[in-house]
């Protein structure tokens, strides 16, 4: 009599645990047609969170023909970098201060995991923008100053004329700023409020401007993994907004993008690109994160479906009509790599194959037994479209299963060097080519 429930229990657990064989090669999840196994869930989400050990004077690894050096270290959670045309480099130090409300027993555990994955930061003040001055472009800044202080979890910045726009987690601010200054010219003016607390799960607001500077585009990530906090928490979220720079009027430019970051226009075009963090807890090889051109008014699935019409079984009520309208992204980066930075190569100092290709900063996985991401990859472009497999470009962020750092924002400076923000190693890295290009 006691055995029967035990047998039933065993059957349930087998059901829950089997189907978890998503044993596929992750390289089959690159490009436009990723291999998508069936969703699976173990009893507990499969996790692997590397301990943070820092760099201790060592550096990441770059391919032959390149050199990597720290431009600045000992920072406090540098998440994004923004090179200016005069050679100055803005470094956005940012962290999430507010705690998410505890609406379920799972939340405190997830908070703990997140804290473990992010290490301690440099110990100094964060949530500010530093300006590194490197007049001769040798990668060794002569001076470092605090451009703006006391921000609220800033991430995206864009300079349009004499206005520096900063996307705090709760608003877009405009600061008066002239190239060459080391301190903003005055107090900010708010352009528009952005969805933030009290939950503010995906809090990084990526920012870019249209070529003519009339519109700003801001990424607003979802408030949950798969809408498990209800539909009202997701109002105007999981979307890219288009904001009129003059009036602050805004609209949803594209939706169904769980956590869009790295907003960038393809050089010389009016095509907006983004990298998107897809959902967790459907197995180690679901769902692939992706890089995509973002079509106006398009719906990319979240939370109802992924990679087009693959319905997420967790979301109720279902929305079959909406799912039918979901479009497929352009290029899968494989699962749980957590892409947060995107930069197209517009410089002249790297070999020709890099022209117009994409660098993607992959912050790295937690929801996967084998770590994935923790690197900067390069994806070649032909005729404005990604081709081939991603190539490891900056690696070595994980050593012996421990995290020395985690790459986030990436950018190309005026000398054509790649700049990488490392918010766990608390360092800004600069990658230069060692093979002089014939001119």
């Amino acid at each position: 009599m006691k055995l029967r429930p035990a047998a039933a229990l065993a059957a349930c657990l087998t059901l829950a645990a089997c189907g978890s064989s998503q044993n596929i090669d992750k390289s089959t999840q690159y490009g436009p047609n990723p291999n998508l196994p069936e969703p699976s869930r173990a009893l507990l989400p499969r996790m692997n969170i590397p301990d943070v050990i820092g760099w201790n004077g060592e550096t990441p690894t770059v391919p032959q023909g390149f050199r990597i050096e720290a431009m600045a270290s000992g920072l406090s959670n540098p998440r994004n970098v923004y090179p200016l045309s005069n050679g100055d480099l803005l470094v956005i130090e940012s962290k999430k201060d507010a705690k998410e409300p505890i609406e379920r027993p799972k939340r405190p555990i997830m908070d703990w995991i997140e804290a473990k994955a992010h290490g301690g930061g440099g110990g100094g003040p964060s949530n500010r923008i530093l300006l590194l001055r490197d007049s001769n472009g040798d990668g060794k800044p002569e001076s470092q100053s605090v451009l703006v202080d006391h921000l609220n979890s800033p991430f995206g910045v864009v300079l349009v004329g004499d206005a520096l726009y900063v996307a705090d987690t709760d608003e877009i601010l405009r600061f008066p700023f002239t190239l060459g200054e080391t301190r903003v010219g005055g107090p900010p003016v708010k352009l528009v409020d952005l969805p933030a607390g009290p939950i503010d799960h995906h809090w990084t607001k990526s920012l870019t401007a249209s070529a003519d500077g009339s519109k700003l585009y801001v990424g607003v990530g979802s408030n949950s993994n798969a809408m498990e906090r209800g539909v009202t928490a997701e109002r105007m979220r999981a979307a890219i907004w288009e904001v009129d720079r003059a009036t602050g009027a805004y609209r949803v430019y594209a939706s169904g993008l769980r956590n869009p970051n790295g907003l960038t226009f393809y050089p010389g075009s009016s095509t907006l690109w983004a990298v998107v963090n897809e959902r967790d807890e459907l197995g180690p090889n679901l769902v692939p994160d992706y890089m995509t051109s973002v079509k106006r008014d398009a719906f990319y699935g979240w939370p109802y479906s992924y990679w087009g019409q693959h319905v997420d079984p967790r979301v109720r009520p279902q929305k079959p009509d909406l799912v039918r309208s979901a479009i497929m992204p352009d290029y899968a980066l494989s699962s749980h790599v957590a892409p947060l930075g995107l930069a197209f190569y517009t410089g002249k100092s790297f070999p020709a194959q890099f022209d117009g290709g994409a660098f993607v900063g992959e912050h790295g996985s937690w929801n996967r037994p084998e770590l994935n991401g923790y690197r900067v990859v390069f994806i070649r472009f032909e005729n404005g479209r990604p081709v081939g497999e991603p190539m490891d470009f900056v690696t070595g962020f994980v050593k012996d299963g421990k995290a020395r750092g985690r790459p986030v924002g990436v950018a190309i400076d005026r000398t054509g060097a790649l700049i990488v923000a490392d918010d766990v190693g608390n360092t800004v890295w600069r990658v230069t080519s060692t093979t002089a290009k014939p001119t």
Partner: protein
Amino acid sequence: MAEIVAHRERPVASVTRTIYLLLFPIPIVCFLGALVTDIAYSASAFLMWLHFSEWLIAVGLAFGALAALVLLIEFFASRAIRAGALGWSHLMLFYAALIVELFNAFVHTADGWTAVVPTGMILSVIGAILALAAVGSLFLVPVTWVEHREVRP
């Protein structure tokens, strides 16, 4: 001639016994409640009910673990309970309920519908049945665990 044997029932008071009887109902009520809120969630897809289930199972497990510990102490302390078949079935049923609900707590961590339908609901039903059976087994023995003692006049 056979001796006449009289049975006298003598209630035995003990601190652990009292603590156990205070703690034991909490997980039972929580696990039954979680079944109700699971049904409410599967009928409405309203996430509040899922959260209710998660908290009920978690609180039930916390107090259930305490109760299980006290029950174990009681078992080691009292030969009379160990000897009685019903005492054993109470312990087994209650522990089985706790184990099922532990797995149920994990299943309920999923983000949405699959936290309950179908596995979470099945486990909640099994857990509730085991919890009720544990209560029933308790009623079949005198609540105060009377010691039966043979007294020869």
